[in-house]
């Protein structure tokens, strides 16, 4: 697991969150970002970002951070 790999994903999520920023309040945007990741990202990419320690400072924007948490919830829900 290289650092640049994580950095790349973080930068992509931040970019998605920024471009969706006008879509609504932070929670709504975070939900939409999570749905976007769920819809378009491959499992290894999703797993890599959701498996990071929750207290790790990855450089995610606040909305992106919530989005990743939401994505984790979505992934957990699929396991059930």
């Amino acid at each position: 697991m290289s650092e640049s790999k994580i950095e790349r994903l973080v930068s992509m999520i931040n970019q998605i969150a920024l471009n969706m920023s006008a879509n609504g309040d932070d929670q709504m945007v975070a939900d939409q970002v999570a749905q976007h990741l769920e819809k378009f990202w491959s499992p290894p990419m999703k797993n890599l970002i959701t498996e990071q320690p929750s207290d790790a400072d990855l450089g995610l924007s606040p909305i992106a951070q919530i989005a990743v948490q939401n994505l984790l919830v979505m992934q957990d829900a699929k396991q059930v």
Partner: protein
Amino acid sequence: MLEFYEPQADYGTPESTSTELVTLSIDGVEVTVPEGTSVMRAAAESGVKIPRLCATDQLKSFGSCRVCLVEIEGRRGFPASCTTTVEAGMEVKTQSDEIGKLRRNVMELYISDHPLDCLTCPTNGDCELQDTAGELGLRSVRYGFEGENHLVAEKDESNPYFTFDPSKCIVCSRCVRACEEVQGTFALTIDGRGFESKVSASQAEDFMDSECVSCGACVNACPTATLTEKSIIEVGKPEHSVTTTCAYCGVGCSFKAEMKGNQMVRMTPYKDGKANEGHACVKGRFAFGYATHKDRITVPMIRDSIDDPWKEVSWEEAVTYTAKRFKDIQSQYGRTSIGAISSSRCTNEEVYLVQKMVRAGFGNNNIDTCARVCHSPTGFGLKTTLGESAGTQTFASVADADVVVVMGANPTEAHPVFGSRLKRRLREGAKLIVIDPRKIELVSSPHITADYHLPVRPGTNVTILNALAHVVVNEGLEARDYIEERCDVPEFEKWLAFIGDQRHSPENTESITGVPAADLRAAARLYATGGNGAIFYGLGVTEHSQGSTAVMGIANLAMLTGNIGRDGVGVNPLRGQNNVQGSCDMGSFPHELPGYRHISDSATRELFEGEWGVSLDSEPGLRIPNMFDAALDGDFKGLYCQGEDIAQSDPNTQHVEAALRSIECLVVQDIFLNETAKFAHVFLPGASFLEKDGTFTNAERRISRVRKAMPPLSGKADWEGTMALANALGCEMNYSHPSEIMDEIARLTPTFNGVSYDKLEQLGSIQWPCNDNTPEGTPIMHIDEFVRGKGFFAMTEYVPTTERANRKFPLLLTTGRILSQYNVGAQTRRTDNSEWHGEDLLEIHPHDAEERGINHGDWVGINSRVGDTVLRADVTERVKPGVVYTTFHHPVSGANVITTDNSDWATNCPEYKVTAVQLSKVTEPSNWQARQKSFDKQQQGLLQQGLLQDARS
């Protein structure tokens, strides 16, 4: 469908579109035709051919040759049937002794100044002058041939594809009028008067030095051997033809591939082709020589390492070898360690099979297509706002447009046949708004001047679109009734609050976009109030880090002004390659099955699982850039790449090359050893479009037949190659003809339910959706309601790219295409089209050039944050200060060595259109170019070594 060679039917004058009918009598037979029809056409439609020379149904009637004279009861003299329109009750006589005598007199004059070398003439048997002399029974010429004449006039052979022999010219002006009316270039004229009259290219120049764009319209129109294809001069008349679809751009022109046995003689634009209606461009019409070029590789090859010579093998050995390596990789690195890239140059059926092999054979969804790097934002943006990932109109619908917006597209270069259609409408008076950093041809060309050219700073399209929408809203110009009836009103209200904010006003965005506020306001008013507004856009919109946002901005603007859902309006993505639309339709994206249905949708998945007899992965696979990243990370080890040259076409070449080098088994299926194949371990020989059956889908969603004109040189069409590989992998496929693949697509895809080869034969072409609701297809989409139900106004926040100019990289590089070359140039570089464009040039404004001491033609080093290359300078005012521009048709140019990894936020479409660069005058190629040259030499050597070894054994 083989057809014996026959010139296409010609009714003499264009069809009238009037709905009023007129009945008259021609040679005693009652005929009913639309009002406005010429007597000549009415006669032709009733089966009577009136002799003619200056008339053809591709051009307005002209009335100069005086051969088509007729008698009309109650009228004096002998009116020309081409310029006389029908009237109710008219009684026309097309033959009489007197008419015959008059016509022969005219012919005598023509023939007295014509070389009588019919037996050795290249158009012997295919010449309207010869036919007409025969029809009129001309037996002698009373004037002799000794008088002053043009028989020694010198031939112009400068054009690589056709000759101009003025000794055979009858000065009928058909070529001149074709250049004006059909092509819209106005390169030809009649110079001089009376006996001195002659056809002249530009200012009496050679064709090659003139403004001629070599579209071939003049050659089609010529009724004699004056303008003749060199291929006809060399090999003679074709003996049969096959109707097929061009394999170049997304216009999808229909052609007659005219053959002598298996030898291609000529491509003639098909008049019944609905995308092109008898017109063509220099690529489709003439640049087919690549199909039989000596560089074609027609035998499968394998090698263990890219440093080994290639070894020629049988198809069976090649696919068995590939299957074993792919299986070994999957067992060592996992199921998702391999994937494929399908091609927008291949047929729908071939693309469908590649994605089927990946999903059903590889057991994953690692399938992507080159649309990733061009129009993936169109798919995302239009699906989000309108509900379908496709353009809304027919090309013909532009004839009803009143205001045309061309944004980030250059139709006269990249989609020339549509460009000609558009020019025709503009000459008729439609208004034009061009949004482009460059002064493209449409901004100012003969008889066309854009009403507004908004020279947007690269990377600020979203700001421009927001500002245009802001003006419409701010000035109360929106189509309220339309929005209330057709769109999601609560979402619209939210969007209204967003777009109404003063930060979007033209005055506040002027410093971002570089576009004067007054021009932008005026353009917005014109689009909103000028009648039918049609938007045509290209890669200058999509290939940005905000490409998807810009597409949604375009859709917003069209909905806001009520400009979707009828003729003459709409949102029209101009697709770069011939089958971009089709490759997307066929499920080439890693998250979607055919028909744009998400892979996570269990009902859709079950449908395919039932048909294919396998269980499908419900998670999206890797996109192309993800594949490269995963390869560099060691997670992605096997790739099957069909008909694409990712090493040349994808951004940040050094990154791509490093990724390709780290792949353990790279399989390339192509007609040439392209740049990507130099990194490959297996080469499967591809088939050109002339060697296979199938369908392409153009930018209008028009599905057209591709028909085999010659057998595949490698023994297999591409779909057969994929099928062999799939079977070797244990993914059973047993199609005997592509029509069976289309039947499967139709069974599984609601928008294709009604499509079949039989129906395509019957209708010629079909625009999807085609199903029980629309059995003959859907020319215009979203007529009564949007596919998604209510139109959705998406928020379009402008997020500037991180790729910005600064002191170190003060200029913005943007890239594009030119008329004579196509995409990575693999095809057109192997034709005489290179006479027009032998190398990629760097366009630079005189101010920027002067500041750096750069002169026209100098070698210029171009440095970006990711790499550097060297190109020759073209100092021009086509670009504005601060912006430089180049094309990417030649691998040695390394245009993508300098483009970055930045990509669209939603789709990862690369940001080709914005790269911050610095320039300096240099004297030698870049290090990358030197390495590329050496690598190319090594790989060509390994190819030759392999071929020699195989020849010895």
